[in-house]
């Protein structure tokens, strides 16, 4: 009788441990998938303001490849990355690729100080109410999205992007045929 109870207890313990293991596996998978929800979906369409002039700017599919880079003046890795993006923008065919920077959680003075350091070849927009970063699901800066000429988000890099990564992504998007997807709807 005791042996039977011991066996039942062991089986119960093993079952609980298996369940716990399944939980850890499930949670692990969930955390790994924390990014890239926008991949394959239309980019969010937003009306934003130029970070320095205050002009309105429609952030929308421009009929060419669009690189959207989120940065902030207090972000140290953004310093080198933005310099690289400015240099890349100067060499890329502007009829084929457009680069846009979005300043995340920054005031105009800090944005201008940052741009004085790194240059202004890439157009900078200000995320005044944080809506752009929410629409893109940004979890930190720098973060970069590559959108194809049809407005579908094709690539995302969290952390500083290198020039080779940028060029590879642009080349990959250039060579990828378009596919349809459901639309993003904002309230």
């Amino acid at each position, binding site marked *: 009788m005791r042996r039977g109870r011991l066996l039942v207890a062991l089986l*119960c313990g093993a079952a609980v441990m298996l369940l716990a293991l399944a939980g850890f596996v499930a*949670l692990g998978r969930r955390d790994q998938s924390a990014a890239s*929800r926008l991949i394959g979906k239309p980019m969010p369409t937003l009306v934003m303001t130029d970070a320095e002039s205050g002009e309105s700017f429609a952030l929308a599919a421009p009929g060419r490849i669009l690189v959207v880079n989120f940065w902030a003046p207090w972000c140290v890795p953004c310093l080198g990355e933005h310099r690289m993006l400015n240099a890349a923008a100067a060499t890329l065919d502007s009829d084929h690729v457009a680069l846009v920077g979005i300043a995340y959680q920054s005031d105009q003075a800090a944005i201008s100080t940052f741009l004085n350091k790194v240059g202004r070849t890439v157009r900078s927009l200000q995320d005044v109410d944080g809506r752009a970063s*929410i629409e893109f699901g940004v979890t930190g800066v720098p973060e970069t999205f590559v959108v194809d000429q049809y407005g579908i988000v094709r690539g995302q890099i969290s952390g500083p992007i290198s020039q*080779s990564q940028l060029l590879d992504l642009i080349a990959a998007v250039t060579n990828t045929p378009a596919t349809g997807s459901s639309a993003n709807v904002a309230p």
Partner: protein
Amino acid sequence: MNGPRSVGRTLLTTVLAAIVLFGIGLGIRHGGGTDRVRDITTRLRCPVCQGESVADSPSKNAQEIAVLVRQQVDAGWTTPQIEQYFVDRYGSFILLDPPRSGSTLWLWIAPVVAVTVGLIAVISRLGRSRRRTWTMSSAAALGLSSMVLLVILGAGERTGRAGDMPAAPPVTIPGATSDGSGRDLSTVTETEMEAVIAKNPNVIGMRLALVERYLNAGDIDAAYHHTSVAIDLPASDQEYEHALRLHGWTTALKGAPASGAEYLRAALTLSPDDRDARWFLANVEWHGLGNAAGAKEQLATLTAASVGADQQRKIDALVADITSGTGGGIMTATPAASAP
């Protein structure tokens, strides 16, 4: 022993338990609280925080999300619609509670199973009686109805599984870095250089050359003073990358290795084949941060860049230090004069 009254009680208990649990579940699912915004933001994870809810985080990002949730509630969105909006953008990561569906359903069922099994195990040790039979039946019914309820609630939820991140290509850009100043300053003293810089504060090349002299002489404070100025000066990309590299190194030497490593990574983003920056970063990773894996990764990249025999010896010496655990977390200025 199991008369009609006992069966009736068991059935009644099962029905009552199911009704109560279903009511609780509906409350959770539809946010029956008086403040729906608070209720929803308590269950949303602040994307830029460490395990904090949007409601509890003081960060600007959390406040912006809370404002948006308020707008969505005012516009008549239901709680599931609002949660789905954020899941569509951030993935199921944004929900502090795992979805009651798919592979995470087990996280909800496991405690119910464990409690039910535990109750049955405890009760089975009691003597045989009508009360024991009744209690065991109730425990089993309660557990079963809880699991059924969880499955029903989870059936309406999405799996919330995001696609895979695109694989990052290796970072390798051919070519070599140079100082960019183009000056022969070997015959000029530090005092003379300071005088020139005082008269021409925007001359970045000479300032960086002076920083290297100070570093070689071990005068970290003087070097740090000039790198702090240099990173804010107008500069070419090469000069700017050089300034980031030296500022990263001096910042680490001044006792802030994490910040120094960030500047060095910024320099490497601008110029991935800058061996000096990578060598500095390897030293900061090991001597400053005690991060053996991070240091080895940088050294492996350096080795792959086919360095000379002398340079490889320096790399091998640092690898040996890391392997033997020598000097981890102890920052010294020594490697400054011997970057491969």
